[in-house]
């Protein structure tokens, strides 16, 4: 459950890169032969450049001007936008390898990176696959087999009784063997039915009884299983690196517990939770597993860790992972470089004792998605403005996009991996705050509000996290930063100062230094008195006084301000003639409407516009394509009944009726592409 989905979900960019080893490449001593590398982002190309290797990028036709395509020495188009016709099209990719004479392929994170068939075909043509051998991919690709191999290699697996439990006494015996807490669940179960957690013998008996009853009534099958219950599990993984000569290293852990819908959002290395004993134990088991499958190249062994620091093998990823940069940060190793060396048959350069933990690294996955909808539904658009926070030190951004790039419905919506590094965790976190505040993304909805809330949340800061962090902290869904009085004053004062700056610029004659203004923010209405002296605005608002100063550049996307002596980076997202100012403040964007006192008074006469009745119309919540339409005009639908299914970025979303009604009109057909807010179906 907690694993990343395999092929498509984690691909970073819509691109796949090959790089070609060149004859003169001294590191690899290849003579007049090419070799190809295959990867989804510019990282691999950068490393190749560093190593003197020529690279070939493959791309779909919509990615023809993507960053990796420009960076690579050669580029080959492998087909149209849908991944099945391009990045997953092995024939086209094999042709590309042949036509460029590439010698090796780096498979990147997604697409074909763990596809054994692809690895086989490469082997058949004598092309090096920069990754583990086929048999390791196969062994680890199968859940049951990998668990058996792990068990045999003395790696902790989730303890459980594989047979059917007969009686309550049996259940207690088994539970005692496994160790509490345990989970009793229906053999035929699913969806939480027939599941009980027991912390002692008594609860086990009770649970056995209830569960078997529930199982019998729900599934007509009262057989039960018992396995170890992992309370508040953390997802912690160990990076391993192995060569073809039987040597393997563990490169410490990555804490990846912050997830939504089983996809990682924020990762860090090291974990606040592990002590050196546990770390070593996990590392050694990971290495044992790697050796057991004669693993070579970089790989990741994923564990679940419970609150008592017991850890259990989950699965092994036989590729480079999206979050690998944080390991690079704390160990100083370039994993891509190591992979290429290993693929070429070199022995590992390092010994286990050479692998340090230097400082702390945090990675935030910046997605083009709306965090206000189930912690992130995909959004699309053109990056009208895009500026990475590279002006800051100790910040690394791995992305494959640039200003002007299109985020399309065809691929994963990840914009970048934002990594910050510090000597301590606090330093890395504070750097991450700055980096998120300085990150300019316009044209698509993004998840920076959520990321910034996570990394500043007291529970996260104290390290009290688990894979349930998001649903636990935001049980009613994410609502953006909640302003306290002080912050609200700062926000209102900043908006007022910006408003006056813009007003003053338009004025030819009038010179004024005192203003009475009104601001609307959410449901609230605030009156403000503003005085200006030089570049400083003194704003009295909401029972407090705020001093705001700054450079007041009205063209700049970033708005560096000093508010009551504290430096704050705000962003002005938009500003219009009717006084509406949208500011990004503490990661979240807030709409403030600033009006003169007179305008505010007169505005009270303005009627509320009646919003359209949304229960009788169904609009697409996101851009995507229509997979199925389950109704036709004249049908009567019940409340909650599925009306149609929209697929966006590999996710299928079922749209349901908000009320019981007759279908009036259907505006979409299966296969059609729809935009966000497009009318799909009208009800009566």
């Amino acid at each position, binding site marked *: 459950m907690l694993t990343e989905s395999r092929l498509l979900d984690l691909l970073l960019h819509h691109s796949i890169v090959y790089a070609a080893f060149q004859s003169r490449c001294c590191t690899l001593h290849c003579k007049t032969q090419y070799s190809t590398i295959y990867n989804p982002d510019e990282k691999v190309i950068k490393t190749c450049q560093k190593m003197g290797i020529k690279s070939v990028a493959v791309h779909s*036709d919509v990615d*023809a*001007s993507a960053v990796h395509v420009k960076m690579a020495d050669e580029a080959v188009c492998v087909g149209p936008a849908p991944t099945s016709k391009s990045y997953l099209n092995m024939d086209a990719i094999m042709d590309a390898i042949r036509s460029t004479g590439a010698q090796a392929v780096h498979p990147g994170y997604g697409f074909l990176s763990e596809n054994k068939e692809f690895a086989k075909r490469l082997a058949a043509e004598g092309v090096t696959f920069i990754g583990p051998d086929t048999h390791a991919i196969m062994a680890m690709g199968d859940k049951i087999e990998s668990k058996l191999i792990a068990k045999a290699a003395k790696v902790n697996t989730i303890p459980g009784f594989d047979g059917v439990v007969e009686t309550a006494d049996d259940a207690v015996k088994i539970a005692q063997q496994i160790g509490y807490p345990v989970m009793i669940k229906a053999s035929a179960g699913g969806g939480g039915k027939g599941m009980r957690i027991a912390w002692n013998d008594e609860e086990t008996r009770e649970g056995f009884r209830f569960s078997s009853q529930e199982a019998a009534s729900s599934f007509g099958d009262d057989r039960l299983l018992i396995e170890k219950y992992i309370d508040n599990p953390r997802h912690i993984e160990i990076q391993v690196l192995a060569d073809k000569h039987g040597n393997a290293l563990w490169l410490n852990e990555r804490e990846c517990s912050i997830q939504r819908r089983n996809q990682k959002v924020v990762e860090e290395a090291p974990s606040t939770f592990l002590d050196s004993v546990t770390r070593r134990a996990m590392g050694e088991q990971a290495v044992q597993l790697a050796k057991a499958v004669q693993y070579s190249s970089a790989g990741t062994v994923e564990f679940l860790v419970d609150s008592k620091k017991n850890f259990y093998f989950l699965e092994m990823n036989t590729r480079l992972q999206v979050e690998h940069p944080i390991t690079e940060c704390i160990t100083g190793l370039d994993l891509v470089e190591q992979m290429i060396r290993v693929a070429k048959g070199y022995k590992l350069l390092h010994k286990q004792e050479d692998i340090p933990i230097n400082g702390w690294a945090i990675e935030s996955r910046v997605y083009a998605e709306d965090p206000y909808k189930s912690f992130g539904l995909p959004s699309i658009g*053109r*990056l*009208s*403005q*895009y500026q990475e926070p590279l002006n800051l030190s100790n910040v690394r951004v791995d992305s494959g996009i*640039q*200003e*002007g*790039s299109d985020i399309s419905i065809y691929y994963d919506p990840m914009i970048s991996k934002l990594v910050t590094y510090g000597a301590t965790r606090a330093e890395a976190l504070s750097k991450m705050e700055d980096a998120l505040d300085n990150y300019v993304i316009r044209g698509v909805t993004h998840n920076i509000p959520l990321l910034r809330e996570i990394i500043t949340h007291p529970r996260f800061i104290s390290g009290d996290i688990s894979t349930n962090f998001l649903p636990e902290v935001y049980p009613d869904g994410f609502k953006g930063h909640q302003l306290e009085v002080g912050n609200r004053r700062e926000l209102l004062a900043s908006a007022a100062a910006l408003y006056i700056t813009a007003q003053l*610029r*338009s*004025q*030819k*004659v*009038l010179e004024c230094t005192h203003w009475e203004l009104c601001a609307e923010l959410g449901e609230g209405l605030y009156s403000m008195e503003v005085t200006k002296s030089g570049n400083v605005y003194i704003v009295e608002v909401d029972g407090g006084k705020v001093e705001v100063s700054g450079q007041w*550049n*009205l*063209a*700049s996307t970033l708005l560096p301000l000093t508010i009551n002596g504290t430096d704050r980076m705000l962003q002005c997202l938009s500003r219009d*003639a*009717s*006084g509406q100012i949208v500011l990004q403040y503490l990661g979240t964007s807030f709409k403030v409407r600033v*009006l*003169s006192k*007179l*305008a505010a008074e*007169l*505005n009270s*006469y*303005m*009627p509320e*516009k009646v919003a359209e009745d949304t229960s009788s119309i169904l609009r697409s919540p996101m851009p995507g394509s229509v997979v199925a339409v389950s109704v036709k005009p004249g049908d009567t639908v019940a409340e909650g009944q599925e009306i149609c299914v929209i697929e966006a970025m590999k996710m299928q979303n079922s749209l349901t009726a908000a009320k019981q009604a007759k279908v009036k009109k259907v505006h979409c057909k299966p296969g059609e592409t729809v935009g966000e807010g497009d009318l799909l179906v009208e009800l009566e």
Partner: protein
Amino acid sequence: PAHPALARPPLAIGSNLCVSFPPERIDMKRKAALVGGGQKRIDAQHKRGKLTARERVELLLDPESFVESDMFVEHRCSDFGMEQDRNKFPGDSVVTGRGRINGRLVYVFSQDFTVFGGSLSGAHAQKICKIMDQAMTVGAPVIGLNDSGGARIQEGVESLAGYADIFLRNVLASGVVPQISLIMGPCAGGAVYSPALTDFTFMVKDTSYLFITGPDVVKSVTNEDVTQEELGGAKTHTTVSGVAHHAFENDVDALLNMREFFNFLPLSNQDPSPIRACHDPSDRLVTSLDTIVPFETTKAYDMLDIIHAIVDERDFFEIMPSYAKNIVVGFARMNGRTVGIVGNQPKVASGCLDINSSVKGARFVRFCDAFNIPIITFVDVPGFLPGTAQEYGGIIRHGAKLLYAFAEATVPKITIITRKAYGGAYDVMSSKHLRGDVNYAWPSAEVAVMGAKGAVQIIFRGKENQAEAEAEYVEKFANPFPAAVRGFVDDIIEPATTRKKICRDLEVLASKKQVNPWKKHANIPL
């Protein structure tokens, strides 16, 4: 002795006449003028979600800048009991005067719906004419805030004469000072022609209507059932008829937007296009433009993306954003100076020119030319829209309007061909041949008579290998060179440098002087 009748009147009487009028009475009249039709009607006005005539003026103008004229004017009608005191309101049904918007002079009239439903009396018209005459004398724009039930029926022909007096002044002022109409309530019958004659007509959603005849008359004449909103609401006029140039949410929103809009305009045809302090570097490279034009020539992109990225601070005041969307027009600034932007919109109907887009473009270009506003044209046009609907509708004479407008314009004209510039539409879109000052092509530009497919079908009719021929044609013509080698474009530029180049060119062209041959007036194909 003189005849007693000729005797001078006693001095005493004369001195009595010199005694000043009691100040209380002046005050009283002023106070009466300030409340228009009275508190009850003001409340009713507010209840409709509308502001009063005075509130509107106050919000539109800078604080305390309004100088009112003709506050004491009353109507002169004596029929139907109109002569009674209770039917006289100082100032009658319109508030007029002058004031400033961001310190710049403007003349304003604001019809007062609380007095006889804002109906137009002879006196009302006279007040409007007075400030229009003054505006012409000093060279300042006129903004009309319309909220009137129509003619003052009691006055009959005097009211009609009043309309005509205003129409005449609208026409005479046209091209001399900018005229803006903001429709903030009903505006029906003959009254609609004043807004129609002004340069820009803006409306307020849900509370403003413009029509020649209302729904009742429509029903009785044509038996059509139609609501006020459908017949002449803001949505109708901004999307279907093209009568209005923009619609705003409510009175406050509209008036605040008017202030912003006013900033773009010169005060008169003697004024250069205004300059505002610019925080956006004029040499800013816009790298996102390098990838905006898709490789497939059939694929659309949003011309607004290009415009927003190039102009100062992404600040673009679009005119008629919901009408004839295949052409985009509006005001922006380059390095602080107001410019008019015209662009084909590939996202809508491939950006072709048709009747509506030609007329929309032509009117905008002529406004810019009349008021010294440089015109920047972005071209991606596959041609004129074919079909009977267009031909029967007169695309020939309507398309000619845009051609005429660009050709006649003597303001600085800069043109950027981003992709297609096909056929006659290429000529029309501010081409070099129509006295374009600077004409650029992006590397993705293709200036040709038509697209490759169509051309090949004609040139190689009946030939076997059409695909090969097409490839040859693309190689030869689907690029900027054929135009560049003939000097029809001055340069092929990297898209990223477009802003920088335009700003630099505008500097140079600021002193452009070009005069058309003397004529009484030109004869645009109306």
